[in-house]
């Protein structure tokens, strides 16, 4: 595979014409630089005769000087610079050495730049000078040594005097220098500089040089009226009036500064995103689906085999002929014109390529298939990106035996830049901490044992530097972003930030990598899972990931673009997909057009960037036969509106009035935004009450008298009183239930008899000790004891003390065959949270032999809430229909999850829980347990924020969202943890919303673009306005 990756960036391609046609060029341009000219006299000769190469001619006007020399029409003249500037043909100055003259020459007004171009007779005798506007670009071309010029006098003035006009034809020739590739310092400007500067508008001298060069070359092409014979159709013919390139450098410099002031970047709308992804979706079909090798134990779905083929070809792009020869979108193809009287040799290149955005010239065909070996695997969540990546690892493995003969292996497999270091056979997978175990398990399961898989995390990191280069190195090494970051920080801790950010520096001096097994490895492949974690290129995590060394780089994410186009940049930069990985390129060609509302164009370019780099399929993507590539069971999301109970409503209204008063006060004082945090806290409290009033108990302690006393229509009521009324005065201890009693209740098919009245237990209640008695009997008994001044106790076992509040209602029912396909009939009869809803099915029919017996228990006066009731109603119903059904309950409040735990215990549900407080080990354990079919737990409680990313919860088929989040996308992502590949059952999602509460308003806000949460940064007037609107809506 891919052995020829490291074609040195030299001239071999020109000399070897067979390669020139057969090999898709992966280098930007023909690279010809001073160093390479010493390579082989043969090549040298060809090039000597080839350059300077005729480009075209134009008619220009000069003016005569002094009248000392007479010229006649037809006479050949030479052009030269009056006073060559500091930077001339002798080559590019090293960075920093000439910054003074440049800055004053171009940037400052003090010193007028020298643009003068003279033309002379053959013997050097000066005839005259070019007009200023011509001289401006000609002088640059001459200074940079990019072009040479020859002139012929067309029309000489009849009266020869100073300033007389002379009409000339100027023939332009490109020099070999022009075809030299820009050095890394120029091409990768942003890599070396931008990230480390606070102000990106600051231009380095290199950037200035590049700008001048761009200006000069572009102007020449325009003046010569050169028309490309081919451009990339995606981008379309270049708009000749792209201001940024053809205006003079001074002007464009100002324009750039303006752009920088508007630093806020426009967000990408959903519709635009669709357009972006459309292209990426079509791609990938061009390769025949590929089966993984036998070492992979999984069978791939057809679309996954396509993905494997695509990725395999991306990695082996060089060794694999002209599969996909599209012209690079930034490049244009030109044909060399024939100069009169010159013969063209057949082996000379007939075409050349010009990149107007960098002013690079090339003789080689620049494909859009970049040097980058890898790409962005952006399949929608649930399509099995993990498995696709693993199949690639299986399919494209480095032969470890080659490690024995390092030299041979090196020449094939190392990159030019890291020649000093040994190749590691390891695929490094970087993922969020919560996914470590999932990756490991999948990797182990996918393999027949021939892969060695290790996790590099936490304490188990005591590795030698060389471990990854040895024969026993793991094939797959899984680590977390946090680990990458911390190793990177500790390695780079002593170095200044500038060198830290400079990838080139890093590459040239790999010494720093010693001391970290992670960074010392030159991996066969690096995979970033959930790669949007590095979407911000300035973060240390992103920089750490850039510094991971590998030839093959993959970014795996379901959302390559989260908000801004620049999110994508960081991924492209990680991939080193040049030239897009250059921030200047990106900015000029994508960000700026996009910001200036030239969206169509920017989007078109992005699609052409994406096309070869990104593979994205969604759940709705169709295969060539028009069938969905992935048939997931249905997903039904229903919003269930619940009313508050009366005490809940009292509390809510009290809090709401309180909040509203406060908000109105802030409004009048104009200090809403100042008090944003406090308002936000109020909102949180309101939302918590919607879940369960207990969540705010204790948090509402009055800090001053006015805050504690809440006005209600009945006069002032202390919030605490309301709470007390709600929560009752009994202690909170929840006894555990005897599962055996429950089983008895489940197994007896007869309605049981009350031990007190000997009647059938119509409304039986359970003591905490699980003894069952009629409600009225036990109440009489408790009353009796109370009259006698005795504490209540269980009439059967005397366990006590018992109060009425401890009693648990239960009722039994025979669930007959009620399995309703697809939908849940329950929702029709229990909507509105009527607790009696399920008692409808309570069995009078003792011989209902078809159904399972279901025992429904409910705490008498349990400090439940509308939502808990609704949740339990659903869970109990589902348990009745199919006890093996597993459910996931999401809430953003861990306090709410605590309450759910209590109520689940009460009803004897076995459950698991996952929230932010769990260690990695715990999470792993929990997730594995939930997946195990025999595990008794049927309910998983997850805090919305702990469970948002990556988890695989397909064992469940029911999802309950206890509370809405500001941004629906977060909820959707949580739901997709269940409704993803591997899900075999229809997924039913219930979103509980309290009627007439803040939650309903959140729902309506969810449907709008600016979510409160996204505007927390508070730096934009618009966002502030939007937030004000939202707040006013909430407190209306």
């Amino acid at each position, binding site marked *: 595979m891919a052995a020829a990756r490291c074609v040195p960036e030299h001239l071999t391609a020109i000399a070897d014409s067979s390669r020139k046609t057969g090999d898709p060029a992966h280098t930007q341009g023909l690279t010809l630089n001073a160093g390479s000219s010493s390579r082989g006299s043969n090549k040298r000769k060809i090039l000597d005769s080839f350059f300077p190469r005729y480009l075209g001619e134009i008619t220009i006007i000069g003016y005569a000087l002094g009248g000392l020399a007479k010229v006649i029409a037809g006479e050949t003249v030479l052009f030269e610079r009056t006073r060559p500037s500091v930077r001339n043909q002798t080559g590019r100055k090293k960075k920093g050495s000439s910054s003074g003259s440049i800055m004053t020459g171009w940037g400052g007004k003090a010193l007028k730049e020298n643009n003068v171009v003279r033309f002379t007779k053959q013997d050097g005798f000066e005839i005259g000078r070019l007009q200023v506007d011509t001289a401006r670009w000609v002088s640059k071309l001459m200074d940079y040594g990019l072009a040479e010029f020859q002139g012929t006098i067309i029309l000489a003035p009849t009266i020869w005097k100073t300033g007389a006009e002379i009409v000339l034809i100027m023939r332009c020739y490109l020099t070999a220098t022009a075809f030299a590739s820009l050095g890394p310092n120029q091409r990768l400007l942003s890599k070396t500089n931008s990230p480390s500067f606070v102000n990106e508008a600051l231009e380095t001298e290199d950037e200035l040089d590049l700008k001048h060069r761009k200006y000069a070359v572009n102007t020449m092409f325009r003046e010569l009226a050169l028309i490309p014979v081919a451009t990339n159709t995606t981008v379309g013919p270049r708009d000749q009036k792209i201001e940024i390139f053809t205006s003079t450098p001074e002007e464009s410099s100002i324009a750039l500064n303006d752009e920088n002031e508007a630093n806020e970047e426009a967000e990408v709308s959903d519709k635009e995103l669709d357009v972006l992804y459309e292209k990426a979706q079509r791609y990938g079909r061009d390769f025949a689906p590929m089966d993984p090798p036998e070492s992979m134990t999984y069978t791939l779905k057809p679309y996954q085999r396509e993905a494997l083929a695509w990725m395999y070809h991306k990695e082996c792009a060089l060794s694999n002929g002209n599969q996909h020869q599209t012209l690079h979108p930034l490049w244009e193809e030109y044909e060399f014109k024939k100069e009169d009287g010159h013969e063209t040799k057949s082996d000379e290149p007939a075409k050349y390529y010009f990149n107007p955005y960098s002013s690079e010239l090339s003789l080689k065909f620049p494909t859009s298939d970049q040097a980058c070996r890898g790409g962005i695997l952006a399949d929608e969540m649930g399509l099995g990106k993990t498995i696709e990546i693993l199949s690639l690892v299986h399919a494209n493995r480095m032969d470890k035996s080659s490690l024995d003969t390092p030299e041979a292996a090196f020449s094939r497999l190392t990159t030019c830049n890291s020649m000093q270091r040994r190749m590691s056979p390891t695929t490094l997978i970087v993922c969020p901490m919560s996914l470590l175990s999932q990756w490991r398990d999948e990797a182990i399961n996918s393999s027949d044992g021939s892969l060695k898989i290790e996790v590099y995390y936490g304490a188990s990191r005591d590795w030698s530097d060389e471990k990854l280069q040895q024969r026993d190195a793991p094939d797959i090494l899984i680590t977390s972003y946090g680990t990458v970051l911390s190793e990177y920080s500790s390695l780079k801790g002593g170095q200044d930030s500038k060198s830290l950010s400079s990838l080139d520096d890093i590459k040239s001096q790999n010494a720093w990598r010693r001391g970290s097994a992670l960074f010392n490895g030159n991996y066969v492949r690096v995979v970033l899972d959930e790669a949007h974690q590095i979407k911000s290129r300035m973060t240390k995590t992103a920089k750490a990931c850039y510094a991971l060394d590998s030839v093959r780089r993959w970014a795996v994410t379901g959302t390559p673009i989260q908000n801004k186009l620049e999110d994508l940049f960081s991924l492209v930069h990680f991939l080193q997909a040049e030239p897009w990985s250059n921030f200047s390129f990106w900015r000029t060609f994508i960000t700026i057009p996009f910001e200036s509302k030239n969206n169509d164009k920017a989007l078109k370019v992005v699609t052409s960037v994406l096309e070869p780099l990104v593979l994205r399929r969604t759940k709705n993507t169709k295969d060539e036969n028009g069938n969905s590539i992935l048939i997931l069971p249905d997903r039904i999301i229903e919003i269930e509106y619940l009313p508050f109970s009366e005490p809940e409503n009292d509390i809510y209204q009290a809090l709401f009035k309180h909040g509203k008063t406060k908000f109105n006060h802030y409004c009048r004082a104009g200090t809403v935004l100042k008090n944003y945090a406090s308002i936000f806290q109020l909102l949180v409290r309101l939302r918590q009450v919607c879940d369960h009033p207990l969540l705010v108990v204790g948090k509402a302690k009055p800090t001053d008298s006015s805050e504690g006393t809440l006005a209600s229509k009945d006069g002032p009521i202390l919030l605490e009183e309301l709470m007390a009324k709600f929560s009752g005065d009994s202690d909170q201890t929840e006894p555990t239930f005897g599962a055996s009693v429950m089983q008895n209740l489940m197994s007896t098919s007869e309605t049981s008899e009350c*031990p*007190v*009245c*000997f*009647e059938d237990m119509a409304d039986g209640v359970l003591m905490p000790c699980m003894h069952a008695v009629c409600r009225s009997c036990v109440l*009489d008994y408790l009353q009796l004891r109370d009259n006698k001044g005795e504490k209540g106790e269980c009439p059967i076992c005397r366990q006590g003390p018992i109060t009425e509040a401890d009693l648990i209602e239960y009722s039994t029912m025979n669930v007959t065959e009620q399995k309703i396909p697809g939908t849940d009939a329950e929702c029709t009869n229990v909507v509105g949270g009527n607790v009696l809803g399920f008692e409808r099915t309570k069995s009078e029919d003792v011989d209902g032999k078809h159904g399972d017996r279901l025992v429904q228990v409910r705490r008498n006066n349990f400090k439940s809430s509308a939502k808990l009731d609704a949740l339990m109603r659903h869970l109990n119903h589902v348990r009745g229909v199919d006890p093996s059904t597993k459910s996931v309950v999401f809430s953003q409040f861990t306090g709410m999850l605590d309450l759910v735990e209590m109520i689940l215990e009460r009803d004897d549900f076995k459950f698991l829980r996952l929230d932010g407080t769990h260690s990695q080990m715990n999470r792993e354990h929990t997730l594995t347990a939930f997946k195990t079919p025999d595990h008794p737990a049927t309910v998983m409680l997850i805090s919305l924020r702990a469970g948002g990313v990556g988890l695989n919860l397909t064992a469940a088929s029911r999802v309950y969202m206890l509370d809405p989040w500001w941004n629906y996308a977060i909820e959707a992502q949580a739901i997709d943890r269940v409704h993803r590949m591997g899900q075999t059952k229809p997924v039913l999602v219930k979103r509980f919303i309290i009627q007439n509460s803040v939650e309903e308003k959140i729902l309506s806000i969810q449907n709008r673009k600016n979510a409160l949460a996204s505007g927390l940064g508070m730096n934009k007037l618009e966002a502030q306005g939007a937030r004000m609107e939202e707040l006013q809506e909430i407190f209306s």
Partner: protein
Amino acid sequence: MSLPKRIIKETERLLADPAPGISATSHEDNLRYFDVIIAGPDQSPFEGGVFRLELFLPEEYPMSPPKVRFLTKIYHPNIDKLGRICLDILKDKWSPALQIRTVLLSIQALLSCPNPDDPLANDVAQHWKDNQDEAIETAKEWTKQHASA
């Protein structure tokens, strides 16, 4: 006033499935009034004796305990001359979950295990404490004398 279903059921069950050594039948004219016979438990001083008791279910039953009394004379530290029984479940430890059957079984058990530490008949209890063998002998004699069928 009608008879609670519980009492009817208890009566039926006592007839249909009597506890060993215990019989209880209600009077036809007063279904709350039961004639009870308990056989003296084996290995106890009351072995071989047949003891008659009366049992009455008050209006509040089962919230209140039944009233039970020995009609047959018995020499027992927890039963007095009038036949009143010192048994916690017939007093403060009553629970509505208890039934006639359980009460009578408890009484039967009490015959097996006299408890002189919680006496009702003080003289008998004292006798039991001072000279248990002699007291048991007396109890056997009383049984022979009063409780022979």
